């Protein structure tokens, strides 16, 4: 039974060309990019080439790209680095209520350190209203951070519109674009962002390489003190093989985005259109049209997500859920609660995130496998029995 992997928001396979390009940097070119000799020079050149490729993917200048170890580090650097550098001017930071933990918890930490954090609401589709952003800005606001797209529910935020406002009000604007870059077009100039996070692992590159775009002239302080790698903003010996892989993955993404969009969209549309005919009492989550291609987020009412995931996994289908039982913290997804989805419904959420190796046959497998799993769990659910008794 072939595996159907539909959990690309969690991790993606390496593109074979990416893997191929990385191998020599483990075996042959292991020099330290800071060394003067030939081995060091080769590693240095490879890093700068990768930087150029990533800059081209997001439309920035090469020297505006800073390598980090993961999306979480990029987000921490953006928030804490800007907060530290600008705290004499103001102490107010604005984020949305549906940010990734690496923004949400970083903002919480800054709050404990004396900063003011404003958390903006979202509508039922998970959208941030640019007018609400504009109203929230005060003379004390030093940074606004709104994610480019939300992987859990697939909604794409109106970043370009918000960027116009922040530019006019002269407030720094960061966007966590980890789940967007490589899947949909992201251009830092068009978006008017001052900082933007991206991660190789979200576009068929390796784990362990990510980047933060920082517009030239933006003042920011480092989180790690040490050597002068990344122009003093990110000390520590560079992860050369991963960075090389990220560069190749960026080039591939730039070439393939149109094909990726159409392929993923096809899978998403098929699943979204055919699932309701097979399973009653579903609720699709996130924006109906303004959403990541290949991302289907749906709540199956009256049952719980982890139980569905376990049965699907036994059938070789790997997906995700926003249920409290899935998260190690045992909390229902804050994203769904912020969107006004009640906690009981969120327990039954399922997330299908497709990748380029998925096929229409994979969608058929899901469409065949899920209904009996749902039926089985609904048959033993007291919540379902009560709901059905009410309906009749």
């Amino acid at each position, binding site marked *: 039974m072939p595996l159907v992997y539909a959990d690309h928001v969690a991790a993606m396979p390496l593109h074979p060309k990416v893997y191929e390009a990385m191998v020599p940097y483990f075996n042959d070119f292991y020099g330290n990019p800071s060394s003067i000799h030939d081995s060091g020079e080769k590693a240095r050149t490879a890093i700068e080439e990768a930087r150029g490729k990533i800059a081209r993917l997001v439309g920035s200048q090469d020297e505006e790209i800073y390598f980090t170890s993961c999306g979480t580090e990029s987000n921490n650097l953006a928030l804490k680095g800007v907060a530290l550098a600008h705290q004499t001017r103001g102490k107010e930071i604005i984020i949305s209520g549906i940010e990734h933990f690496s923004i949400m918890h970083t903002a919480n930490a800054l709050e404990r350190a004396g900063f003011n954090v404003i958390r903006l609401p979202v509508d039922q589709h998970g959208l941030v209203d640019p007018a609400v952003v504009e109203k929230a800005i005060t003379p004390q606001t030093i940074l606004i951070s709104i994610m480019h797209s939300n992987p859990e529910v697939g909604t794409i935020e109106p970043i370009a519109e918000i960027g116009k406002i922040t530019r006019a009000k002269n407030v720094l604007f960061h966007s966590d674009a980890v789940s967007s870059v490589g899947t949909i077009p992201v251009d830092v100039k068009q978006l008017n962002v001052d900082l933007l996070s991206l991660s190789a692992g979200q576009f068929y590159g390796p784990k362990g390489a990510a980047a933060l775009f920082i517009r030239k002239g933006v003042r920011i302080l480092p989180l790690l003190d040490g050597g002068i790698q990344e122009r003093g903003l990110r000390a520590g010996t560079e992860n050369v093989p991963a960075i090389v892989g990220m560069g190749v993955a960026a080039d591939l993404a730039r070439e393939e985005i149109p094909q990726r969009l159409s392929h993923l969209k096809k899978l998403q549309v098929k699943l979204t259109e055919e699932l309701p005919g097979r399973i009653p009492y579903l609720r699709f989550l996130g924006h109906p049209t303004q959403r990541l291609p290949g991302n289907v987020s749906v709540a199956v009412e009256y049952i*719980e997500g982890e139980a569905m995931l376990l049965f699907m996994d*036994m059938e070789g289908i790997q997906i995700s859920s926003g249920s409290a039982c899935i998260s190690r913290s045992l*909390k229902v997804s804050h994203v769904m609660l912020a969107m006004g989805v009640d906690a*009981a419904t969120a327990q039954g959420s399922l997330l299908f995130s497709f990748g380029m190796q998925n096929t229409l046959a994979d969608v058929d497998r899901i469409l065949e496998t899920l209904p009996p799993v749902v039926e089985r769990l609904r048959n033993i659910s007291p919540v379902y029995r009560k709901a059905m008794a009410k309906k009749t």
Partner: protein
Amino acid sequence: MYSETVMDHFKNPRNVGTIEDADGMGEVGNPVCGDMMTFYIKVKNNLIDDIKFQTFGCGAAIAVSSIVSDMAKGKTLEEASKITNKMVAEALEGLPKQKLHCSNLGADALQKAIQDYRQKKEGTVSRPEAKKCYCPVCDLENPMEAGFCTGCGKEIPDEHAHGH
């Protein structure tokens, strides 16, 4: 993540269902918290003659309910009263640490069903157990009457009140 015994009970839960004319019924948890279990018992000659359950919840919650029903079936009410959540976790060859707190409610539901039976048939006055309410968002323990979480300020729905 789960032991073989947990997976066995999850895949093939024993005694699933309801009993229309049950002698005792016990329900714990609620879907907001992630787990809810309903137990039904039929009592004959002081023995648990039949037992059925329904569960909304994760793999652990379903396995817990199933093994509790197995452990209680055919036992005297006194014996069944002694089944604790700890014994259930041991019978399942352990549960992941984070599941011990939320999913291991089976023994509680069984005890409630026995209590319900005694109240109905024997007129025993039951001692109401002290209930606890946890915030569905930040998991902080809150006073029963709290409409809002004292920790994060999120609204706590009425039906959330329960002990675990």
